[in-house]
C-alpha cells in the first residue's frame, strides 16, 4: 500500500446524473511515468482532477502516497476533509493544464514564487532564488521578468511547469500539456518533461504524443467512456492492442 504513489479502487465520479468515471482501478509506483490516452470526453481530465482533490469522488477509494483523497478514515467511518486540509494535500501535487493558466498580472518569476511565498511562507529571497533555478532548468533564464502575454505558448507552459515544481511536489499531473501548442513548440515542453522523468519524478501524463508515451512512459493506460479499457507497457499496448476500441483509437492518433 504505502509503496504506491497513487492507487485507485473502483473510483466513480458523476456530475449530476451523468456518470463520468465508472469504476477506475489504477496503480502508480513512485518514480513511474504513467501516460493516459483516450478519446475526448472519456474522463481523463476528471480522473486527474480527482487525484488532485479538485473533484470529490462518489464511490470507491483513491489514495495518494498512502493517504485517502478527500477523506480521513477513523475506524470504519469516513470523514470529509476540511478546506484547509485539502489545500495542504494539494501542495504536494503539482498540476499542469492544457491552457497553462499562468497568472497574467505577474511576471514569470512572480508566477513561480507566488505559492511558495503565500502558501509555504518561504522568504521572498529564498523563493526568488529557487524560482530562478527552476526557470533556468526549464530553459527560460532570460525570460524571468516577462509577463505571460510576452511569452510564446511553449514558454508559458514551461513557466507553468516551473510554477508547479516550486512547491516541491511528490507527484506531477499533466493534462494534455502540449495540446494547445503550435507543433514547433511541442518539443521544448516535452524535453523538460523528459528531463523531469529522468530525475525520478512520479508523473501522470494525459497526452496524445505517442512518441513521448513510448519512449518516456513506464506504463500506458487507454480510457474510453469512463473506464480503463486497457493498460500495460507502452510498447506492447501500442504495438499489439488487445481491444478493438484501443485499436481504432490508436489508428487515429498514430
Amino acid at each position, binding site marked *: 500500500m504505502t509503496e504506491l504513489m497513487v492507487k485507485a479502487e473502483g473510483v466513480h465520479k458523476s456530475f449530476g446524473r451523468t456518470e463520468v468515471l465508472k469504476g477506475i482501478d489504477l496503480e502508480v509506483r513512485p518514480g513511474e511515468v504513467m501516460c493516459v490516452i483516450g478519446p475526448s470526453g472519456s474522463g481523463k481530465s476528471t480522473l486527474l482532477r480527482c487525484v*488532485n482533490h*479538485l473533484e470529490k469522488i462518489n464511490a470507491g477509494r483513491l489514495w495518494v502516497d498512502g493517504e485517502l483523497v478527500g477523506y480521513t478514515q477513523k475506524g470504519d467511518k469516513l470523514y470529509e476533509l476540511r*478546506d*484547509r486540509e485539502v*489545500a*495542504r*494535500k*494539494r*501542495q504536494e*501535487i*503539482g*498540476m499542469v*493544464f492544457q*491552457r497553462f*493558466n*499562468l*497568472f*497574467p*498580472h*505577474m*511576471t514569470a518569476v512572480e508566477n513561480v514564487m*507566488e*505559492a511558495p511565498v*503565500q*502558501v509555504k511562507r518561504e522568504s521572498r529571497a529564498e523563493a526568488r532564488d529557487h524560482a530562478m533555478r527552476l526557470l533556468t532548468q526549464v530553459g527560460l533564464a532570460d525570460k524571468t521578468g516577462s*509577463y*505571460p*502575454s*510576452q511569452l510564446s505558448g511553449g514558454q508559458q507552459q514551461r513557466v*507553468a511547469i516551473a*510554477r*508547479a515544481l516550486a*512547491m516541491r511536489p511528490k507527484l506531477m499531473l499533466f493534462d494534455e500539456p502540449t495540446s494547445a501548442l503550435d507543433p514547433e513548440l511541442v518539443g521544448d515542453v516535452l524535453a523538460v518533461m523528459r528531463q523531469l522523468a529522468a530525475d525520478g519524478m512520479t508523473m501522470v501524463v494525459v497526452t496524445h504524443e505517442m512518441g513521448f508515451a513510448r519512449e518516456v512512459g513506464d506504463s500506458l493506460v487507454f480510457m474510453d467512456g469512463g473506464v480503463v479499457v486497457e493498460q500495460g507497457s507502452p510498447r506492447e499496448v501500442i504495438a499489439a492492442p488487445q481491444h478493438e476500441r484501443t485499436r481504432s483509437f490508436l489508428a487515429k492518433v498514430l
Partner: protein
Amino acid sequence: MSNPIKAVPVRHPGRWLAGAVILVLAAMLAHSLVTNENFHWDVVGKYLTASNVLNGLKNTLILTVLSMAIGIVGGILLAVMRLSANPLLSWTAAAYIWLFRGTPVITQLLFWFFLAALYPRLGLGIPFGPTFLSVDTNSLIAPFTAALLGLGLNEAAYMAEIVRGGILSVDHGQTEAAEALGMSRAKILRRIVLPQAMRVIIPPTGNETISMLKTTSLVIVIAYFELMTAVQQIYSRNFQTIPLLIVAAIWYLLLTSILTVVQGRIEKHFARGVATR
C-alpha cells in the same frame, strides 16, 4: 523602405467643415463669457475661496471619500457573499442589493436621519437577552453619520454588482491553477482573482466616485452642508445666483479632473501584463 510610398491622402471636407463650425461657436462662447457682465467674474473670484465655500468643499470631499470607502468595502463583501455557495449568504446579499438599489437615495438619507423615531435608543447586548450599553439614537446618528450611512450603504449595493461582474470576468482556470497550488480561498480572491477583476471594476468605480461627488449635495435634506449647500446659502442672501453656481461648477470640475487623472494611473497599474501584448 527603399522606395517610400508617395500618395495623395484621402480628403475629408466634412471634417474641415465641422471643425470650422465648432471653432466659430467656441469663439462666440469665449467672447460672451468675457464680455457679458452678468457673469460677474469679480464675484466668482471673490467667492471661489471664501471660507464658507471652502468648508463646504471640505465636507464634500470627506463625504465622498468615506462614502466610497464604505461602498467599496461593503461592495466587495456583498459580491463575495452573493457568489458564495452558501445559499443564506447569497440570498442575504441579493436582498440587500434589492432593497438599497430599489429605493431612492434621498429616501434612505431621510430614513437614517429619522431612525430615532423608530428606535429611540440603540443598545449593545445579547440578542433577546440583557443589554449592556444603551445610547440615545439622536446623539449617535448626527446628520454626518446619517449622511455617511445613507450614501455609503446605498453605494455598497451598486459597488456589489460592479465587483461581482469583475470577479465573474476572471477565467475560472485562474482559480483552478491557484487551488492546485494549495492556496486558500481567501488568498485566491486577494492575490489572484481581485487583481485581475480590477481591470473591469475600476472604470465603473471611477464613474461611481464622480457621481458620488455630486450626489453628496443631497445631504441638504438632512440639514448637513457641503459645497452646493454653501453656495446656495450665499446666493439666497446676495442673489448672485449665476456667479455662485459658477464657483461650484469650477470646484466640481477641478475635483472631477483630478479623479480622472488618478483613475488613469490606477487603470495603468492594473493593466500590467495585459497592455504589453
